[in-house]
């Protein structure tokens, strides 16, 4: 079955946001296609309820993105034109030569040299960017308290992304019954029903959606000394993005290095500005075709326009986007964020008498490697000279 919804009320710049969000409209959706010329979105599905419910939901989303839309503030802070000598389908090449194993869309196993490049790039982000500050390293769990996510407003801003974590109830009958049912079924059957309420408690934890939340949780109820502090950490992050995981770089499970600034407003703002300059130097040194521009988060709420407009007008978020030549598009590989006192208030982090303000710089490690390889390919001889030298020096020292 398929249904077609008009996009007449939407600016073309919003089509992508709608397509992304429409994936979450109904679990029976099989395919979503935007026809820019006809200004329609076509939804192919197998819903037992027919077209009506899906049409209504997609229209509701279209209304969300069109509400008060007059165009967003846009600004490019810097652009770096790289030579992009490679223009092949890097994903196909990585899969063909078994460097990358696709477990399912957005979930991969990486082998050499991809896995080495991930460690190398992270090493360079720490040495070239994080260590330019008086930085302290922290180590975080891969899971986070639901109570902590609640404080960050994650449940209300990005509810569709959350990967909840639970376990069988501490109940011998439930545990043995579950085990027996698996044996009887001949193993785990994904389609077989499982009564979650009976067998599992309400989740206390979720998979970490972002690295910096743990930093704020760790500073809860503390008063910082001096102007503030700079922390760096890398952690595995998880975001459920439905069928959007088939898009280049949209991973279910990924590694995010962050440099986090917590302290007085001037301390955070000055460090944030400095980090932008360091990011620019890195993009130039590695000769990656890229640009840093104002961005907004994909808030999954009815007040999307207000939140996104505010975020852009206040320049709270910049994204460093790297070009993917064979797709003629770009993906965000790093972001530079300012949160004002949101997390300082939420976690009661003080500097002097005031709530601390926070900011952070994020590096999506896999995305950086994907984007670099999509511009330069796997042949090291084609890589930029400085990058090749740094990588060789790092390989000599690494295990």
């Amino acid at each position, binding site marked *: 079955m398929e249904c077609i919804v008009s996009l007449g009320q939407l600016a073309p710049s919003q089509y992508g946001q709608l397509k992304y969000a429409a994936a979450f409209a109904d679990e029976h959706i099989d395919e979503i296609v935007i026809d820019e010329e006809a200004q329609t979105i076509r939804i192919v599905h197998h819903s037992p309820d027919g077209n009506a419910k899906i049409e209504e939901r997609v229209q509701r989303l279209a209304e969300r993105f069109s509400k*008060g*839309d*007059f165009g967003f*503030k846009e600004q490019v802070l810097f652009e770096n034109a790289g030579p992009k000598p490679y223009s092949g389908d890097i994903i196909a090449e990585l899969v063909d030569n078994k460097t990358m194993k696709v477990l399912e869309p957005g979930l991969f196993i990486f082998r050499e040299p991809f896995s080495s490049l991930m460690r190398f790039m992270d090493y360079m982000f720490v040495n070239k960017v994080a260590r330019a500050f008086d930085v302290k390293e922290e180590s975080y769990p891969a899971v986070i308290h639901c109570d902590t996510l609640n404080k960050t*407003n994650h449940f209300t801003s990005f509810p569709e992304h959350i990967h909840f974590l639970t376990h069988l109830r501490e109940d011998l009958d439930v545990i043995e019954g579950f085990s027996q049912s698996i044996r009887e079924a001949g193993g785990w059957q994904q389609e077989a029903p499982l009564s979650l309420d009976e067998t599992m408690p309400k989740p206390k934890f979720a998979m970490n959606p972002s690295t910096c939340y743990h930093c704020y949780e760790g500073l809860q109820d503390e008063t910082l000394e001096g102007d503030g502090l700079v922390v760096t950490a890398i952690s595995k992050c998880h975001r459920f993005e439905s069928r959007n995981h088939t898009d280049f770089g949209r991973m279910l499970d990924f590694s995010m290095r962050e440099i986090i600034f917590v302290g007085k*407003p001037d301390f955070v*703002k000055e460090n944030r500005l400095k980090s932008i300059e360091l990011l620019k130097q890195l993009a130039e040194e590695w000769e990656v075709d890229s640009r840093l521009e104002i961005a907004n988060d994909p808030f999954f709420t009815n*007040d999307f*326009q*207000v*939140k996104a*407009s*505010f*975020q852009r*007008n*206040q320049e*709270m978020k910049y994204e460093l986007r790297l070009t993917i030549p064979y797709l003629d598009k770009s993906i965000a590989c790093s972001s530079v964020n*300012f*949160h*004002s*006192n*949101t997390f*300082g*208030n939420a976690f009661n982090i003080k500097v002097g*008498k*005031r*709530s*601390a*303000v926070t900011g952070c710089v994020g590096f999506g490690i896999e995305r950086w490697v994907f984007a670099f390889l999509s511009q330069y390919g796997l042949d090291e001889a084609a890589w930029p000279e400085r990058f090749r030298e740094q990588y060789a020096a790092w390989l000599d020292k690494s295990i």
Partner: protein
Amino acid sequence: MEAIAQQLEEHIRAQYEIDPDDDEFTRDVHLFDYGFIDSLGATALIAHIEKTYGIQVTNQDLMLYPLNTVNEIATFIETKKAG
């Protein structure tokens, strides 16, 4: 404008629990950059302005007018009321 600025300052001090001794808080301080109001607080402040002064703050207003300080917001309110 002075009266509106005075009312706004009092509202922001009370609503966002600004310490009376905080000498960084002035009518010209950038409320967001200096951590007096966050994005949720800004949404609440807009609702307060709409209700108190009987004006509508559109997304376009947010983009066209500088609305970062008490004085800028007071000037904006006066302009909208006059318009």
